[in-house]
């Protein structure tokens, strides 16, 4: 007679969770296509195929049951997040190399699902950023601003063959992101207001990108409503970035963009709701989540404004990922029937 109770369980599974995360990204992807064309769909597909193939190969080598692990959906989430983080108008191998690196190195060399210290998508992103910085700047201009319009076939020619349409220049379809623009032009001693009067800027942040960010926010709220993520990380992330940006903006509005601009720019919304909230690489305690989120918000802002990269979300996430074991150990909550408010790794 063995005790194996409880004999009942909730219907939730890992793959239902992952599929809901993917579903929450769909509206933002639709808006992405609306503003920047269908190229992103191609890079998402490429990333997905690469992720599944890499995952399958590794699972096979590690003698894991293929079907359940391939169907858990975690590789797809990594693939989509990476694809959404890099420019869609990049050579095909960029996303393939990044995804394969993410799955192979960041996920499986750390022990596979549930064991990785760093967010795989962000590791993939950082690897590409360091190895191929030039390709990582080919952000498409919103359709309304592009000087010339490539059709889908032309985009594919460029992605897969590196061929530019006759007489076309890459510059005509790509442009610097709002964060990039802000950074470079501030060095030219222009003020934030002057810079933001430029055509790529809009009410909140960048044309097009701000709407995508809004839909990431909506997707995140859906995940929160579905109790897949808690509010702690997104709120502390956005709150800390807003507060940091707000203070500096008040001090010198000519040098520092508004807090609203920052939380709708770059990878902030995607990072706050979809990347920083990755279960495996974030703290498990509520206080830990608050510290973690706030840490990312502040470091991302600092890297973005004072560091060498136009955006800092990915590096901030990786930086705070490395602190997760420590954060967890020092934020263990009080256990029922014990005195005090917290216990630190067992010592009350």
């Amino acid at each position, binding site marked *: 007679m063995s005790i194996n109770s409880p004999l009942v369980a909730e219907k939730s599974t890992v793959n239902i969770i992952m599929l809901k995360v993917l579903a929450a990204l769909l509206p933002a992807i639709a808006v992405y296509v609306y503003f920047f064309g269908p190229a992103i769909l191609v890079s998402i597909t490429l990333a997905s195929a690469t992720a599944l193939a890499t995952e399958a190969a590794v699972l096979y080598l590690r003698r894991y049951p293929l079907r359940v692990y391939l169907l858990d959906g975690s590789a797809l989430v990594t693939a989509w997040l990476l694809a959404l983080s890099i420019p869609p108008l990049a050579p095909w191998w960029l996303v393939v190399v990044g995804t394969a690196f993410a799955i192979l190195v960041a996920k499986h060399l750390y022990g596979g699902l549930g064991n990785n210290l760093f967010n795989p998508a962000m590791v993939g992103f950082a690897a590409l950023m360091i190895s191929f910085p030039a390709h990582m700047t080919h952000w498409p201009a919103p359709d309304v601003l592009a000087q010339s319009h490539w059709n889908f076939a032309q985009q594919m020619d460029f992605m897969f063959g590196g061929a530019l349409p006759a007489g076309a220049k890459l510059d005509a379809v790509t442009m610097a992101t709002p964060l990039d623009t802000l950074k470079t032009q501030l060095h030219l001693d222009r003020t934030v207001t002057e810079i933001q009067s430029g055509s790529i800027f809009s009410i909140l942040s960048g044309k097009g990108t701000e709407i995508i960010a809004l839909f990431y926010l909506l997707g995140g709220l859906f995940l929160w409503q579905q109790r897949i993520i808690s509010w702690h990380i997104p709120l502390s992330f956005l709150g800390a970035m807003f507060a940091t940006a707000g203070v500096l903006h008040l001090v010198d509005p000519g040098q520092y963009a508004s807090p609203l601009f920052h939380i709708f720019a770059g990878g902030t919304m995607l990072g706050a709701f979809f990347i920083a909230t990755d279960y*495996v690489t974030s703290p498990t305690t509520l206080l830990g989540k608050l510290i973690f989120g706030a840490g990312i918000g502040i470091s991302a802002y600092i890297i973005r404004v004072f560091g060498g990269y136009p955006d800092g979300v990915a590096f901030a996430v990786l930086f705070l990922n490395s602190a997760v074991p420590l954060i967890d150990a020092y934020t263990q909550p009080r*256990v029922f029937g*014990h005195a005090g408010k917290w216990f630190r790794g067992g010592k009350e």
Partner: protein
Amino acid sequence: MRTLYPFHGGVHPVEHKRESTQLGSAIAPLPLHLVIPLRQHGGNPAKPVVSAGDQVLKGQRIGTAEGYISSSVHAPSSGRVVAIEMRPAPHPSGLPDLSIILETDGEERWIERQAVDYRAIDPAGLRQHFQDMGVVGLGGAVFPSHVKLNAGNLETLVINAAECEPYITCDDMLMRERAAEVVQGIRIAQYAMGAREVLIGIEDNKPEAIAAMQIACQGTGFEVVAVPTLYPSGSAKQLIKLLTGKEVPSGGLPTQIGVQCFNVATVYTMHRVVNHGEPVISRLVTLTGNMDEPRNYEVLVGTPVGELVKLARPKADTTGYLMGGPMMGVPLADLSVPVVKASNCIIATSKALFPPLPRAMPCIRCTRCAEACPADLQPQELFWFSRARNFEKAQEYKLFDCIECGCCSYVCPSHIPLVQFYRFAKSEIAEHEKERKAADLARERHEFREFRQEREKQEKAAKHAAKAAEMAAKAAAASGKAGEAAEGGDDAAAAKKAAIQAAIERAKAKKAAVKPQNVDDLPPGAQAKIDEIDERRAQAKETAEQSVAVQKSDKGQGA
């Protein structure tokens, strides 16, 4: 409305309670054979006081409590003891238990039953009476009630009628049908513990029971509190927190915070014991699950489960049976096991009601388990440490505060059997602890033996030295007598000196043997002294060895 103090976490499994409350409770027929395990309570098993062949009456004590934490067991019906032997028991350990097998005679002849006036006997006497009558916690833990009653001047007496596990409805039916008697039982417990306040916690999915109890409690000052339906509100610690806002200290007792908690069925048996003179020989058992006629039955302790379940007509596709609820129950491998005092429910299982759980996946650190844990633990950390056999860390993260409620396993999207890991870790730690204690004991014994041997050796050596000195003195005296009389006066002194010298040597030898020496870098004088002492000690050792050899040869001669 009373302020409630919600505990953390909890889950809402599908209740399945309506099925077994459609019909009122019925009395299960008397089986031909009853199997009464002597261990039906926490603590020591009872000691049989009948032998095979004895005729017994209904309610007669057949096993008597062994020690303080133990309880008596009684014949559930009249008949003949046919055997006292090991039989499978529905115990979580799965081990068979010594049981008394009773062949019933169908006459149900009672022993003489005597009601007692609980106000007339002192509390200690009442507690003794409960132990003699086999009163134990019927909520599932079956801890002897007289032990729990041994505290006075209580702030709050909590009556646990939450019945939070799915499927189980025996407490619900008890309150619906016998509320007045339950209340009489509560009076007894309140009196015995001097409780100033009585709170009866019932989950709000039992409106009939709440209404019945409210009527029965009128004019008593007892308060019926409807608590939100949330598993595990029926866990004593969680219910106490919910009703009083106080937390039972980790590893401590509720009485430390002025609270005690009894299950509603337990106080009912207190009433039967006190006011009717009936020991605990039956209980309400819910038969439910994959059955055509789920229902509650008043069942005699010892009734084989296999016979009992037929009453509710299990369906053809039944895959097995479960004793207790689906969250904490025990699957029954053997249907010959009897109903015991702990058996509140028997569930017939089927593939439809209990679909096999999906394959376990790695922990993804989603923290749903931590959100669900009513003990405020971090189950994912405990899992990690338990699986890695890092038991020290598991204990540091308060493994032993886990109440094994199963909430974590219930919500885990990876369907990891978390509770099994905790049970494994707990038993491993208990085992290590036992081994460590045994090893400590063995080491202590060994050390003592060595110490004793050493002491004996030294004593012998000293004796020998003294003897040698004596002999030398005698020899000196003899030679003195023979020749130089002038030196005779010094003889006694010489002997004395030799004896003193021997004593000093003994003391030195002892000291040297006990104290580890630090012999490096000593001044030359000290080194010389040590050498001298070492030499003497070596001599003492030699003489000791000789004396042993002599003794041995003496013995050899004597034999």
